[in-house]
């Protein structure tokens, strides 16, 4: 007998003794036997995928045996099971190369959160009251199937809606197949900081509707327009790894990094030169640089003609963008424009990046075209030290159109979904399924999201937490946490290698939850023939095996790592060499654009400040506000914890009689909020900034009722061409209300009010 088997027998015997006199112990025994082959005290490392943001980093999960109180077979008991103890980056993964950001490190707290939904729920009180009763999975699935089935009987499956966070890979494929087989419209994807503008610009300029991958490690000069690429934007870990190399990875070579933004971000703090430009004028500055480059007889190569052709006046040498004109428009001195352009010429490869606030103005598409044209002029596309597009594996999705994220703004899609509900039109949704999307929190007030959702007769949610949106659900079918799930991903950016990430559950489910894909498959089978044909798999892992296992060696050019078992072991498959992306899609006709002035909501006289919400390094768009590790990690630039704050320039604050920590009211034409003021030297005098993330009404004990939500005062301004929310186009006024409370982490930094309060 093996030693381990002996222990199992011993455990059973002991358990039998313990259960004497409790009915039929043999039915319950199973829960006392260790569920996995783990040696006490020894760690197993299992691959997984980080889902805290859309970058798709590879994880290694440290799993150790531990005792957990869990409900099994309806009874509470203590069992030995594998528990996730620590997350590290997967050293072999091409995106993050063994590294992780602070949000990724906190992924553990999602699984072990005390306020996770532990079992299916059915609403008992009025909608939104949060009163639920526990039901069984059989009841829950039956209820969902019968709701969908009655929609079908009434010939109304077209009025089924699905709201989700951005998804890729087979989860997305499954949802799309489910909806299309039912005759329902495609899922509506919600992304608070929507990158649709850049995807659209990249599609028109370069033929790829994707966020780019930047070869920072080999570039010699980087000009960044607003993108928080070391903090929250695009693929921050991949970009930070490359940044380290760009600074100190090459003996004798150190790139220059120029940041252009109106409020110093964590990323901007690392710049060699920091240049504030007027909000909404970034495109003008990019073309000003291009103007100087053209004068120095720099000429684009033929293969990037498309990007250039999108800019009006290019052939004439961009005469509207002389350094003097740029100074007038942007506030950046003409001499600076000329100097930076010359530095770019003498330090090639020189790269330009745009993201964040410059892409959240009404004229954002123009700005994105301008930066793309600048990159095209510098010969950066597909070149060393330039821009790459991550090749999308053909297997990633059966329907090619789904393999990349949307280039259509999520606000426009939300409008199409919400407006009929508000107008009580017959086209309004009659049933809604939601998955990890919180539009009630992230939607600007003009959308009236909550009011619209309340008009939907039936709402079911797959969320793991009650938040402002899932609290409206009639039925909650809680998903496993990511570490408990089968996962797959095909990253949009962050590497030049073709990448498929794949992961088995790293740990067993702690609660009575079920994987969302498995629930959908179950429901599909209950709904019968045509759904069953579209989704023939019994469980999600069968679907994954079908998608990625069947094309082993032959299709991946004899790479032995392409094997299904090998994929499971190493966390996926990726090409060892960088690969070229598929040829660009055929050109979409788009006429050249000329300078578009940004529009702002609110008169400059009554609303003197630009309002700049920004993604929080810890809480991101608010979806991580429920994690105490994130709440208690000081914000990098302000050191604030557990709170909201409003950043204001010292001179502006003095003029308004506002001191550090004072409670101020920030009012737009669409709403107002209150938060403590943080006097910051790194912000323009006509801008106030506020981190997104706090201000949740309902989002676990750690986030509820804490701080204020800047989304709640945004004007419904849109990026004209894509219908994305122009979240940086609202103007506000500021008034002091009284004394407030700022929670700052002083640490060893002896400065500000903390020091005077010290002993």
């Amino acid at each position, binding site marked *: 007998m093996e030693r381990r088997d002996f222990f199992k027998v011993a455990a059973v015997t002991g358990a039998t003794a313990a259960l004497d006199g409790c009915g039929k112990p043999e039915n319950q025994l199973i829960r006392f036997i260790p569920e996995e082959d783990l040696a006490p005290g020894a760690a197993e490392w299992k691959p997984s995928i980080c889902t805290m943001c859309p970058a798709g980093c590879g994880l290694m999960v440290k799993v150790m045996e531990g005792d957990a109180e869990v409900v099994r077979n309806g009874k509470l008991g203590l069992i030995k099971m594998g528990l996730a103890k620590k997350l590290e980056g997967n050293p072999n993964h091409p995106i993050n190369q063994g*590294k992780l950001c602070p949000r990724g490190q906190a992924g553990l707290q999602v699984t072990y959160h005390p306020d996770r939904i532990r079992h299916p729920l059915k609403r008992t009180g009025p909608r939104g009251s949060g009163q639920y009763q526990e039901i069984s999975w059989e009841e829950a699935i039956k209820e969902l199937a019968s709701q969908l089935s009655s929609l079908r009987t009434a010939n109304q499956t077209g009025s089924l809606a699905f709201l989700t966070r951005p998804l890729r890979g087979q989860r997305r494929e499954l949802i799309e197949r489910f909806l299309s087989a039912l005759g329902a419209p495609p899922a509506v994807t919600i992304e608070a900081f929507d990158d649709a503008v850049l995807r659209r610009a990249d599609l028109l300029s370069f033929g790829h509707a994707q966020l780019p991958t930047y070869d920072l490690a080999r570039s010699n000069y980087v000009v960044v327009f607003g993108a928080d690429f070391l903090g929250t934007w695009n693929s921050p870990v991949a970009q930070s790894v490359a940044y*380290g190399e760009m600074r100190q990875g090459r003996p004798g070579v150190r790139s220059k990094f120029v940041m252009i933004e109106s409020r110093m971000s964590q990323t901007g*703090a690392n710049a060699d030169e920091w240049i504030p430009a007027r909000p909404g004028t970034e495109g003008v500055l990019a073309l000003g640089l291009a103007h100087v480059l053209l004068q120095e007889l720099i000429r684009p190569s033929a293969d990037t003609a498309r990007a250039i052709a999108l800019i009006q006046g290019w052939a004439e040498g961009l005469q509207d963008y002389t350094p003097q004109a740029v100074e007038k428009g942007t506030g950046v001195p003409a001499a600076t424009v000329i100097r930076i352009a010359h530095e770019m010429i003498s330090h090639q490869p020189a790269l330009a990046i745009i993201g964040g606030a410059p892409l959240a103005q009404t004229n954002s598409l123009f700005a994105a075209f301008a930066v793309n044209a600048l990159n095209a002029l510098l010969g950066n596309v597909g070149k060393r030290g330039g821009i790459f597009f991550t090749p999308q594996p053909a297997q990633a999705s059966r329907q090619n159109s789904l393999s990349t994220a949307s280039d259509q703004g999520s606000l426009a899609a939300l409008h199409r979904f919400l407006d009929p509900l508000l107008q009580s039109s017959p086209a309004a949704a009659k049933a809604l399924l939601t998955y990890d999307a919180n539009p009630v929190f992230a939607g600007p007030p003009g959308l009236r999201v909550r009011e619209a959702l309340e008009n939907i007769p039936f709402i079911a949610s797959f969320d793991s937490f009650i938040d402002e949106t899932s609290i409206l659900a009639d039925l909650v079918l809680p998903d496993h946490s990511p570490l408990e799930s089968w996962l797959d991903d095909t990253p949009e950016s962050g590497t030049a290698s073709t990448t498929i990430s794949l992961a088995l559950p790293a740990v067993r489910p702690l609660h009575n939850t079920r994987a969302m894909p498995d629930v959908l498959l179950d429901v599909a089978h209950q709904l019968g023939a045509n759904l069953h044909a579209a989704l023939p798999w019994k469980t999600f892992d069968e679907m994954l095996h079908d998608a990625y296992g069947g094309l082993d060696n032959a299709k991946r050019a004899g790479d032995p790592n392409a094997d299904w078992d090998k994929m499971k072991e190493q966390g996926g498959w990726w090409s060892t060499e960088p690969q070229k992306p598929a040829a660009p899609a055929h050109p979409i006709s788009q006429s050249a654009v000329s300078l578009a002035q940004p529009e702002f909501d609110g008169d400059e006289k009554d609303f003197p400040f630009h309002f700049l919400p920004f993604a929080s390094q810890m809480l991101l768009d608010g979806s991580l506000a429920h994690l105490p590790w994130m709440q208690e990690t000081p914000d990098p630039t302000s050191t604030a914890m557990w709170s909201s704050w409003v950043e204001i320039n010292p001179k502006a604050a003095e003029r308004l009689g506002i001191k550090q920590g004072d409670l101020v009211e920030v009012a737009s034409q669409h709403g107002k909020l209150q938060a403590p003021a943080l006097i910051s030297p790194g912000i323009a005098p006509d801008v106030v900034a506020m981190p997104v993330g706090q201000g949740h009404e309902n989002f676990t004990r750690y986030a509820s009722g804490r701080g204020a939500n800047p989304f709640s005062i945004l004007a419904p301004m849109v990026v004209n061409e894509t219908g994305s929310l122009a979240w940086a186009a609202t103007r506000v006024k500021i008034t002091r209300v009284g004394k407030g409370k700022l929670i700052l982490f002083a640490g060893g930094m002896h400065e500000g009010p903390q020091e005077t309060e010290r002993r």
Partner: protein
Amino acid sequence: MAIKWGMVIDLDRCTGCEACVVACRAENNIPTAGADQAARERAIHWIRVERYWEGEFPDVRLRFRPVLCQQCEAAPCEAVCPTYASHHTSEGLNAQIYNRCIGTRYCGNACPYTVRFFNFYNPVWEKPFHLQLNPDVSIREVGVMEKCTFCIQRIQAAEIQAEAENRELKDGEFTTACAQSCPPKALVFGDLNDPASEAARLSRSNRGTKLLGELGTKPAVTYLEPESWEG
């Protein structure tokens, strides 16, 4: 030669992202204080990222500096401890023996880097957060001081493994939680007495400085000052 553990922090690579801060929290069972206690400066961070503003808008700079226990060779915290809870190990660590500590907080007062933290209350992990706790790191109770250990549990595991395999420790075969997570590879941990180790090599850089080096504490942490761009 005996091992001397040390670290190099390249401020030219550091982006201030705070991955190290959360990695340390996860590895070392550091409790969260909550908003009220945090407002009373009772939040515990074995490593923090300090930030310093310079200049006025628009000529403004912001600099980051990760600060953890400097594992001083001449540590002011050790000499003042009446119970020898704070002591020096043979491998150069300023170690803290929690069950010897009687909470005088002398060490915290003596430390010029303010990297020692007092437990003002018993830590609480609301269930089932406790399931994540690292079994290799003890939990500190009310009344004791705690601080960065250079992930001594990882050091010991690696040393035991090497001994079992009858070999020397290899440079880079393990590292601290903060260094392992650090995306731009700003933190490098290793044996400073092994001249070939990455940490020893980097610590000889002409950019190297010691934090408050003039105090004579002889820190085992070397900071590499950021370079400025020269076209």
